[in-house]
């Protein structure tokens, strides 16, 4: 447990000190969301209709931007060799690093989402729904990202490949994330089902991806 926490703590410290890796993801998020109203013109009704989906898509893209950092840097400077020889099984190493990524990237993005909702004329009643679904869905983004990062370890230009590998896996999260906002805010009969499925997806991802990512790491360490 001590090694687990030490690893999370180190990754957070590296992310905070690393010349604003967090800032880049936040900035990208801001730019994507800010540029859309300019492209679509000042139609407030249109904007508020597409706002939840747009916030979600921007969240996926910004999360993708930083996932290859999860293992790539450690592999490049050799610290992954030290970590691999530690007492922590690689499955838990993946879990710790995905949690650190979630805390340093996904969580700040989620917290920023309501602010960006202003730019998109997000309806007031949709704010809690957006925050809730993102909070539930975002851990899955970090864990799937860790899987992609582990699979492409050691490849040059791995970051682009991660995007190709992982974006399709993000689709179910996106679908259920947006549809649960829909069901919570629209005139349709409210239903918790999409939110429950989103929760199930996240839980399954958190449990299963470390197993797969650890295998990928083992294969790529040689």
């Amino acid at each position, binding site marked *: 447990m001590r*090694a687990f926490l030490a690893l999370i703590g180190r990754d957070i*410290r590296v992310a905070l000190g690393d010349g604003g890796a967090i800032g880049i993801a936040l900035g990208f998020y801001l730019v994507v969301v800010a540029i859309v109203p300019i492209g679509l013109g000042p139609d407030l009704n249109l904007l508020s209709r597409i706002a939840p989906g747009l916030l979600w898509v921007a969240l996926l893209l910004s999360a993708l931007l930083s996932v290859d950092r999860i293992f790539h840097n450690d592999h490049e400077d050799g610290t992954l*060799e*030290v970590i*691999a020889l530690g007492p922590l099984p690689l499955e838990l190493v993946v879990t710790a690093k995905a949690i650190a990524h979630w805390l340093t990237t996904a969580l700040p993005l989620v917290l920023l989402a309501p602010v960006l909702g202003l730019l998109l004329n997000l309806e007031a009643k949709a704010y809690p729904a957006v925050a809730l679904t993102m909070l539930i869905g975002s851990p899955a983004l970090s864990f799937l990202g860790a899987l992609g990062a582990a699979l492409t370890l050691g490849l040059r230009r791995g970051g682009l490949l991660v995007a190709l590998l992982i974006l399709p896996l993000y689709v179910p999260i996106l679908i259920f994330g947006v549809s649960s906002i829909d069901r919570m805010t629209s005139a349709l009969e409210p239903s918790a089902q999409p939110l429950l499925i989103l929760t199930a997806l996240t839980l399954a991802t958190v449990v299963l991806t470390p197993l797969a990512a650890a295998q990928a790491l083992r294969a790529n360490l040689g």
Partner: protein
Amino acid sequence: MKLVADQVSATRSGRTVLAGISFALESGDGLLLTGPNGAGKTTLLRVLAGFLKPSSGVVRIEGGPAEAELGEQCHFIGHLPQTKAGLTVHENLAFDAAFLGEVDGVDAALGRLGLSELADIRAGYLSAGQRRRLALARLLVARRPVWLLDEPSVSLDKASTETLARLIAEHRASGGIAIAATHIPLGLEGAKELKLGRVPA
């Protein structure tokens, strides 16, 4: 304890790099790996650390804690810096210590490698030799019986090289095993030597 390699072979991208390597080392033994570039010294060390699966043969450790795998009983010093450029010298070593399960000894290890005054400097600002010394300090913060050293003296100055030789000698005297690929004498007096050669294709 005893470290045994039995008919170990390894391939890298389809090419056989090691063929039928066997040796047995007791507590206190050293093994010097020599051979021309590309002879498989690094590959052998990576196999021993468990990063690379041997294509045939086994590596096993006898007489250690029953549960622990070989990888958990060895230190691996390789070509890469193995330190985080964005963290300070002290933070780097403190993480290694916490992660590898030791509580203290960080300051003592830094002192031994002559890094005390640099403790608050980011590792990215260190010279190559200083960074190498920081990686070597890890050998001291967590006690592990097997040291796998891949050219550990690269970019070290004369005094640091002597310190390293003393560390290896002390490690062996206290019952540890040291395996090093190196071309200079490094506290490996009386060590066995394994000459690796190119494997004919």
